[in-house]
């Protein structure tokens, strides 16, 4: 589904990604872990197409197409979803208008007419249930005045509505208490299928108790320095990142 080869990227002239290699297939869950500043969020931004980041080398092929050439909205239409570490507040744009715009943009891309009001409301109701999101948030501005947990649930709600092929969840666990974490992780697990894939970016092993990864990658200084199974995350939890730093420092 996704093949990343020697991907390099910079922001403001500073190279952050220094040759990423990653392959994700349908049905898989990949965890990307690593210390602060290793490039985890940058990788998610580059894959989603944030114009502030400039890819400078390598490639990212998604379902046979060059991802790096696509506008962010086209990536979304093709099935990429980014769950933000810090969901953006948009005062003045209500959740319901935002979601209607998103749903109808996708339908327009697919050559379908806009969704009827009743179908849309039904869809919202159905998807809210995935993460137990309060209906009252629908009339509020996007993420404005949402609690930390509500923001993250809102991300998974949007993921549920858009039904992406590949979801990249950037530190979805940060700022969540254990109950919220359970709900969010539960939402992700409900949406998991043999046809889609998930990249979970996280700092801690904690989230991986709830979302079981098939592969764990360790990102350090812009490169994936180690790949393993779920055990690798446990090992990190036990030993910290220092041994990784030492190992890759010695390379």
């Amino acid at each position, binding site marked *: 589904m996704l093949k990343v080869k020697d991907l390099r990227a910079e922001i403001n002239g500073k190279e952050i990604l220094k040759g990423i290699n990653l392959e994700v297939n349908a049905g898989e869950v990949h965890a990307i872990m690593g210390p602060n500043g290793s490039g985890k969020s940058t990788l998610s931004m580059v894959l989603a197409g944030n114009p502030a980041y400039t890819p400078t080398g390598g490639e990212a092929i998604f379902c046979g197409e060059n991802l790096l050439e696509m506008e962010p909205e086209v990536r979304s239409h093709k099935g990429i979803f980014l769950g933000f570490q810090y969901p953006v507040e*948009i005062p003045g744009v209500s959740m319901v208008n935002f979601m209607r715009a*998103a749903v109808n943009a996708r339908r327009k891309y697919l050559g379908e007419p806009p969704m009827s009001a009743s179908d849309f409301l039904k869809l919202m109701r159905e998807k809210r249930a995935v993460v137990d999101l309060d209906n009252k948030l629908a009339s509020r501005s996007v993420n404005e005045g949402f609690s930390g947990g509500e923001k993250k649930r809102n991300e998974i709600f949007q993921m549920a509505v858009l039904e992406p092929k590949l979801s990249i969840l950037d530190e979805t666990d940060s700022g969540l208490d254990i109950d919220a974490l359970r709900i969010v992780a539960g939402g992700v697990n409900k949406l998991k299928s043999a046809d889609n894939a998930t990249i979970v970016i996280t700092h801690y092993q904690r989230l991986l108790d709830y979302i079981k990864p098939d592969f764990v990658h360790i990102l350090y200084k812009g490169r994936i320095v180690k790949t393993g199974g779920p055990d690798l995350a446990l090992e990190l939890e036990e030993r910290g990142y220092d041994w990784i730093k030492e190992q890759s420092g010695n390379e």
Partner: protein
Amino acid sequence: MMAMGALRQYIDLFRDHRDLIDSNSAPLINALRPAALEALGGGALPALGSEDYTVTDLEAILAPDFGLNLAKVPVDVDPRQAFHCGVPRVSTCMGFMLNDTFVGPSDRQELPDGVLFMSLRKAAEEHPELIAPYYGKLADLQNPVVALNTLLAQDGLLLYVPDGVKVEKPLQMVDVMDFGMPLMAVRRMLVVLGRGAEARLLVCDHTQRADLDFLSLQTVEIFAGEDSLFDLYDLEESTLLTSRLSALYLEQQRGSKVLLDGITLYNGRTRNEYYCRFAGRDAELNLLGMGIEDGRRVLDTHSVVRHEVGGCHTDELFKYVVDDEARGSFAGRVYVAPGASGTTAYQANRNIVGGDKARMYSKPQLEIYNDDVKCSHGTAIGQLDPMQLFYMRTRGIAEAEAKLLLKQAFMADVIDRVSLPGLKERLHALVERRFNGCDASCASCRDASSRNPEN
């Protein structure tokens, strides 16, 4: 020097046609012309770039050889027919102004006894005793726009609400600019609210012909009596070739509450001046405005609020979106006199500027001679937030659509302060249509109006 030329032609016109002007107006209106002529003096105008005229070039605006319909020759247009744009018919009481001639309120019977919503000229002839204490008493002839208006004005709108009378139905005044050649319309508006009187007025400025130069020269005087309540929504939907020079003067007595909202959706070159004065305690003013400027449009807002007595409250908010090569300017001054203790005054101007060639000038000013006040002012000029844009695009919303939503959202708070039933919703729709790039002419907004069962 050319700088003397623009005004000169109108002074000469006045001298040559004074009888014609006077005979097509009322004695009370004519009586102020000599003072206006004297105030205009040699015909010098503030130059572009001078203090308070950062983006408005009065010389250039007045330079074209506009016609004036001094003889009040009937124009073969029925504004009630010509006008069918997507503006809310929120009122059953609608008046029309064709260029600068009042052509009648729709239904007199809707108004409570004693309320006058009529031609200013006719009112000045029929009820001079009502008009005399007010006409020309606030507007300052030292302001060249006011002096020129006073020199040439023949008609306009009078809204008179006697003591204790509440006009429940909102009033609507539709100004239509329609003439076969470039025209200057010289309009006057006089609003008098007695003690405890209440009224709300929506003024819609339209230009029917997009291919000709028009100038609307407007002077507004509003007297808000004790404990009165008045809302004025002033909506401009004109054309690129239309200029508008408007000077509004407001005086508020004790306990009065006034809302002024200047909404510029489509225009050419506009300068809106607001001069507001508190004459009695415990009065409240909401001074609002928004402008959407693109192409080479110009919008200039100049406001002065004078707290001469204590205990009054001002809340001022102006928001602009300036794109392409458009220029915007906001200059706002709030003055608090030495004795005006217990004043609260908030002023804000926020702007989104897109594109390298768009320009926005903002000059917020507080002038406070008193310690016992709560005042603040602020200005912000920025661009659309790139993270908000990116967030929306990751949800599949195209960049253009995302920008549209963000610009609409930017205007949301100023629109939400509209209290006229139906107007708020309609404005949200009009602003959406505006940002979508639809043009102001009726043909292009048929889609929007067809969704409105009232149209």
